[in-house]
């Protein structure tokens, strides 16, 4: 067997690296490919995660009477699920499209404002010097420990005094910016944005805000994208606060899906069709952006 430097000379760097990896595998290091059992176990975990969604489709395309008698009336979902989708969309107790619209508006507006305000605050905390900076940052982080339920009662009273009960702004305004976002952007900008760039912009005569807009915002893009994703998911699935301040005439999707359950006769196939419709947008989002979401969780863990 030839040595690794010899391989590099005759066959290039790539081959040398591969040879080094092969040699390492024999020692039993990290580079060794895992046993097939590991893949089987992981596949099992993923399957358990998929099963409930599959069950949703099966129940959604089943006959309501059959569901009452058997746990799995059929093994595979069929096209009748589309009839159920139609039924959900045309439901009498609420307007489906209104609910979709409400969810989209809330999720988009909150994500956009969270990213904007968090990046601004993160820029200030990470790169600008001002008296009280450290103390204020610690305060921001400390607020993350306070449970949301604590302020629910008076916040509701405030919202009803403002006449916002039943309106979207009651959901949107309290979540325009959060401690997590500020902390996240601060952590990121601290490393990703060199002081030299800011100084250069300042020397060129840019105002603070222009510096932020032209230098910090572009630098923050990867972290901002992750923050937007997380905020979007969190708002889309949010239930507790909307269920308090919104009513049945103006629901978000999670509230609407719950309304399907409140009929005299509970039609589970209809509920499951609604559940699937509600989850579908996030599944699509996940298919495209799941990679970033994973990276975001892993990055957040190391720094947090």
């Amino acid at each position: 067997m030839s040595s690794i430097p010899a391989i590099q000379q005759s066959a290039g760097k790539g081959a040398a690296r591969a040879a080094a990896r092969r040699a390492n595998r024999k020692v039993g290091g990290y580079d060794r490919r895992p046993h097939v059992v590991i893949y089987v176990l992981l596949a099992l975990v993923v399957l358990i995660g998929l099963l409930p969604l599959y069950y949703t489709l099966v129940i959604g395309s089943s006959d309501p009477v059959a569901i009452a008698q058997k746990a799995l009336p059929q093994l595979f979902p069929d096209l009748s699920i589309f009839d159920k989708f139609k039924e959900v969309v045309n439901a009498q107790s609420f307007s489906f499209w209104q609910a979709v619209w409400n969810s989209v508006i809330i999720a988009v507006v909150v994500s956009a404002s969270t990213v904007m305000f968090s990046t601004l605050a993160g820029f200030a905390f990470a790169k600008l010097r001002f008296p009280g900076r450290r103390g204020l940052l610690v305060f921001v982080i400390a607020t993350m420990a306070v449970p949301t339920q604590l302020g629910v009662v008076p916040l509701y009273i405030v919202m009803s005094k403002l006449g916002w009960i039943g309106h979207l702004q009651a959901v949107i305004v309290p979540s325009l910016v959060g401690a997590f976002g500020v902390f996240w952007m601060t952590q990121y900008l601290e490393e990703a944005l060199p002081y030299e760039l800011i100084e250069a912009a300042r020397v060129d005569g840019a105002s603070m805000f222009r510096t932020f807009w032209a230098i910090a915002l572009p630098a923050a893009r990867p972290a901002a994208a992750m923050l937007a994703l997380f905020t979007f998911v969190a708002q889309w699935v949010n239930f507790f606060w909307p269920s308090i301040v919104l009513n049945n005439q103006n629901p978000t999707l999670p509230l609407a899906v719950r309304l399907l359950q409140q009929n005299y006769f509970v039609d589970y196939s209809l509920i499951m069709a609604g559940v699937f419709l509600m989850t579908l947008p996030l599944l699509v989002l996940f298919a495209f952006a799941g990679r970033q979401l994973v990276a975001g969780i892993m990055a957040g863990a190391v720094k947090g």
Partner: protein
Amino acid sequence: MPVKSPVAPEDELDPLPPKTRRVGFSQTLSRWDVKVSPYLYISPFFILFLITGLFPILYTGYVSVHQWQMLQGQGDFVGFKNFTDVFGQPDFWKSLRNTFSIFLLSSIPQVIAAILIAALLDQNLRAKTFWRMGVLLPYVVAPVAVGLIFGRLFADQSGLINSWLTAIGLPAVQWHVSPLASHFAIATMVNFRWTGYNALIFLAAMQAVPRELYEAAIIDGAGRVRQFFSVTIPQIRATVIFIVITSTIGGLQIFDEPRVFDSTGQGGASRQWLTMTLYLYNTGWSGQYNLGRAAAIAWLLFLLILAIGMVNFFVTQRIATGSGAPSKREIKAAKQRYDAQRKSA
């Protein structure tokens, strides 16, 4: 936080003395910009927190010592009557018991499962990102959706779980009747959504563990299990504490899943799965409309979270330091042994 202090921009602008009034004005403006901008940029968070966070928290205390109905609004000052009223309600004690039980049933298996899944992912896998995404998938399913799906899976008469149980000759479980069974079902929903998420956080911590430690352990003759307990777990201690605390805060606030576990949302016929947040909601917004009492429950919930959080912190720290973790000296010695072996090989 790095203490690199940058050159303050105004220093760079200063050397040019103002020649005309215009330049002087723009300099004043620029200096003002530098001083005020940071506060301006962080102000949205603080303003919003004052209005929707701090004020409501203090106001909760105020509401909790008053008679306060949803329609009549503020009533008389009643001191701690709302609190004693809450203590006098059997439903409160049930909700306390249920919250604890669901919290334990969810967080303990969840943390263990998450660490094990993370250990599976912490290998030189093919298609790494695919597996990570696959594990995270349940995270994007809304808790309400999870609640409705599992409410069906755990149905007493025609649920999938019961039909599996009877298929292998076990008796069907009354998931919506027995308290413990309902807690188990609800904990399963929580675990379904959060295990993968936590696994990825653990994975991130595991990837930061120096690989030489494993190689040294292998040379010392440690098997996979021994490596896991003597290298991995002690090395990711901080993350374990972090996850246990965050899942405690989340677990004690559980609301969505028990609320949709049946169609009435009251926490079961005899309040078997009424949790504290659900109790708070039902007291304030469905049925009683008693905001004063709801505020009292909110404060009690806050104190509970605080107390458990602290207990948690101390216990996890104890466990993590008390286990058979190798000391720094042992790690160093192992590294040296490993290096020597590699050189001679």
